[in-house]
């Protein structure tokens, strides 16, 4: 008998036995292929939308700069969640290290900062703690309204300023908070020799005093200064129109104690 005889002869056994032992095959039907293709496409969409969502989430859509002496800047995404916290000086660093602000809704984050004891101390030192809140956003007014509704906001005499994206970029390039950089630009209109380093060493109160001093000194007959102030990046509302208005608003808010 040849070696393969049994193997070959098995071909001649009953069909029923052969069918009975048929292995389970993985049927690659069109429907199965379609299901797999749809599942793969869905996974791909999920991954891409996840990646897109993550990118969008981490993309800054607004900035809120809180400046007294400490300069704290919050980067917000399009959902107004805090995606970045930058402390621009040692005082700010001490506060930011203590507070967990990331991924908080911006009003909660601002509330936390305003509630912080150390931050409050800077804000209330002998009436020299000017709190400036500078907003860079396509929806500045809405952000402002949110901040004004914060519980502790009313305890602070804060000035709101608005800056544009170019100012924000320049501020970041110079490693400076947007609020302080905007004030520096304002001051520079009166004093061409002032440097950013000088401004960085000054509190917001001192900066505002300098701006007011220059403004008041040159108020009479210096309309061109007034005009140039109107072109500033900072001003749009109170502070925006002119340095004079800024000072006036400040006095008003300080006088009333609440904004």
């Amino acid at each position, binding site marked *: 008998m040849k070696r393969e005889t049994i193997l070959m002869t098995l071909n001649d056994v009953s069909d029923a036995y052969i069918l009975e*032992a048929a*292995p*389970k095959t993985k049927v690659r039907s069109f429907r199965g292929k379609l299901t797999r293709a749809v599942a793969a496409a869905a996974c791909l969409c999920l991954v891409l939308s996840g990646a897109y969502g993550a990118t969008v989430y981490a993309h800054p859509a607004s900035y809120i700069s809180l400046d007294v002496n400490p300069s704290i800047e919050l980067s917000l995404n399009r959902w107004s969640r805090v995606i970045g916290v930058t402390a621009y000086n040692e005082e700010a660093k001490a506060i930011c290290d203590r507070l967990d602000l990331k991924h908080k809704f911006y009003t909660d984050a601002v509330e936390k900062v305003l509630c912080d004891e150390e931050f409050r101390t800077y804000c209330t030192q002998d009436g020299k703690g000017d709190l400036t809140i500078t907003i860079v956003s396509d929806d500045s007014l809405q952000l402002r309204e949110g901040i004004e509704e914060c519980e502790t906001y009313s305890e602070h005499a804060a000035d709101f300023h608005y800056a544009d994206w170019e100012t924000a970029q320049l501020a970041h390039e110079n490693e400076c908070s947007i609020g302080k950089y905007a004030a520096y630009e304002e001051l520079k209109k009166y004093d061409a020799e002032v440097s950013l380093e000088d401004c960085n060493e000054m509190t917001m109160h001192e900066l505002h005093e300098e701006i007011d001093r220059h403004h008041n000194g040159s108020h009479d007959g210096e309309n061109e200064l007034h005009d140039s102030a109107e072109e500033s990046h900072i001003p749009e509302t109170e502070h925006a129109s002119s340095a004079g208005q800024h000072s006036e608003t400040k006095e008003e808010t300080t006088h009333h104690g609440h904004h």
Partner: protein
Amino acid sequence: MEDSKILDLFFARSEEAITQIKAKYGNYCRVIAENILQNHEDAKECLNDTWLSAWNTIPPKHPQVLATYVGKLARNHALDRYRRDTAKKRGGSRVEPVIEELEDCIASSRLLEEEVVDRNTLAPILDRFLGDLPRNARVLFLQRYWYLMSVKEIARQNNMGQSAVKMSLLRSREALKQVLRKEGFEV
């Protein structure tokens, strides 16, 4: 599509017959060919030969069970290719271990290469032997020696341990040995 309709297409010499038979039994035949050849490309060529054989033989043949008919064609083509590849010493097949296992049923010292065993004589003996085996043992036997599945795959498909499969195959081979001896074959 029902087998009878596929056969009608063959008899009408419609090429749609090949499309339909591929769709219905392509996977079944692919598994058989791949088990024997252990090579996807070779199995693919083997399947093409299978469909051609089916086209050339139906008609005049009119298979009662189309599945086993094309399955056997695929098996034969795969075994033929295996022999050619063995001659070229390509190896890598699952056939050799299976043949070695079946050799246990025949005393190797008494193998007479020149002896021509009539398959027509042996086939009914094997058929009866299989009929006498318990169903589970028969399935395992045919999965190993007809479909040339690996022990691991058989165990997986039957929810058994590999050693249980090996034991069942050993007992079946012993039983076959007894049957063949009883029928007067040299074992």
